């Protein structure tokens, strides 16, 4: 097993976790690596939107795999062959990026809530995705907060990136997540601040204070951006606007992923 698992997590919703996960996966794919993205937020899936996938285009899903109706190789959607037409996403044409989406059908989401999740099957899916697609990196977009799916993805990760906003509620929750990640022996634990105010940008003392609070490296501070809000998850922002301040800050994270042991 050589491919690395990268979990992107946040304790609270609305931090920009899925935007960060999809853009990071895309940036890593642009370097020529083989990349997968799994949406384990089965209760409230959303990352497929950033890859231009809708219900019509969506074939087999993680839900089908979990219910034994599909093999994981049938679930991987080749984004490089179907970029969905966005100006940013089109840059992924020919790249090896596979999305493993969760179902957006109400009945299938309610079935998971009703029946629960076979974690042996979910873990088998994650590990088999790496081997069958020969992935260098498998990104996991987790459900915000701490539930069992999230803990499983953290436990199996080589790299955990926690996204937080400069907000006291996020700080307290992040502290809990960091403690749990440490107790699960995640080898590489990083923090990335998103939606930072202008007063937080390019301020080493701000980064140091967060690092002191959590005893973990802050590898990026991404600004609060109206341009990102305007993008409204229609496209992969960092590919569409590579010179934007947010995109540059996001790209600061990539070497930490590529160089992690």
């Amino acid at each position, binding site marked *: 097993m050589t491919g690395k698992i990268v979990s992107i997590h946040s304790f609270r919703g609305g931090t920009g976790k899925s935007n960060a996960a999809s853009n990071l996966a895309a940036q890593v794919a642009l370097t020529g690596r083989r990349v997968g993205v799994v949406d384990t937020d089965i209760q409230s899936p959303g990352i497929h939107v950033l890859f231009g996938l809708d219900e019509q285009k969506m074939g087999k899903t993680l839900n089908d795999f979990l219910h034994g109706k599909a093999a994981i190789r049938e679930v991987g959607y080749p984004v490089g062959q179907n970029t969905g037409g966005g100006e940013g996403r089109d840059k992924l044409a020919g790249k090896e990026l596979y999305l493993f989406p969760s179902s957006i059908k109400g009945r299938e989401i309610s079935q998971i809530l009703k029946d*629960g999740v076979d*974690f042996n099957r979910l873990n088998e899916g994650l590990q088999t995705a790496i081997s069958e697609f020969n992935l260098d990196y498998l990104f996991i977009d987790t459900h915000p907060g701490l539930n*069992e799916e999230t803990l*499983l993805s953290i*436990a*199996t990760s080589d790299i955990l990136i926690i996204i937080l906003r400069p907000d006291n509620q996020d700080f307290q929750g992040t502290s809990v997540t960091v403690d749990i990640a440490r107790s699960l022996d995640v080898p590489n634990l990083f923090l990335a601040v998103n939606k930072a105010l202008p007063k937080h940008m390019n301020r080493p003392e701000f980064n140091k204070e967060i690092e002191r609070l959590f005893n973990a490296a802050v590898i990026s501070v991404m600004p609060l951006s109206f341009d990102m809000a305007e993008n409204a998850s229609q496209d992969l922002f960092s590919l569409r606007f590579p010179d934007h301040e947010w995109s540059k800050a996001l790209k600061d994270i990539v070497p930490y992923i590529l160089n992690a042991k």
Partner: protein
Amino acid sequence: MPGLFDRLDKEIKDKQREGGITPLDLAALPPSLRKIMRLMLRELSMSYPRMCEVMDAMPEADRLPRAELDSVLSELTDQFWLIRIGEKEKAIYKVNLRRKEGSKLAAGIWSALDNKLKGKSPGSL
């Protein structure tokens, strides 16, 4: 007529129903047990000789001495957190995660919701 693989697969699946570890339990394990469980989460299944090879290839500080490895495997197997098929040198280990339970809401609520959602597209939810 089922082959050897089918029989082993069935044996593992039957044993997996008998318990398993939750992701939260993993965080509470002693370091040596957690080391093996993390390894097994990534490898899914592993033979005993292969596990010894992997252990020998680890940096010295991370390595478990053979007696400790055997003791850890025994404890994890006793708890049904690992499933062992076969014995001693021929043993194959497989991780066993406890299933996440479904909702405890009354069944009628789910069938009512199911009927409501029949044929609805995401945009109409």
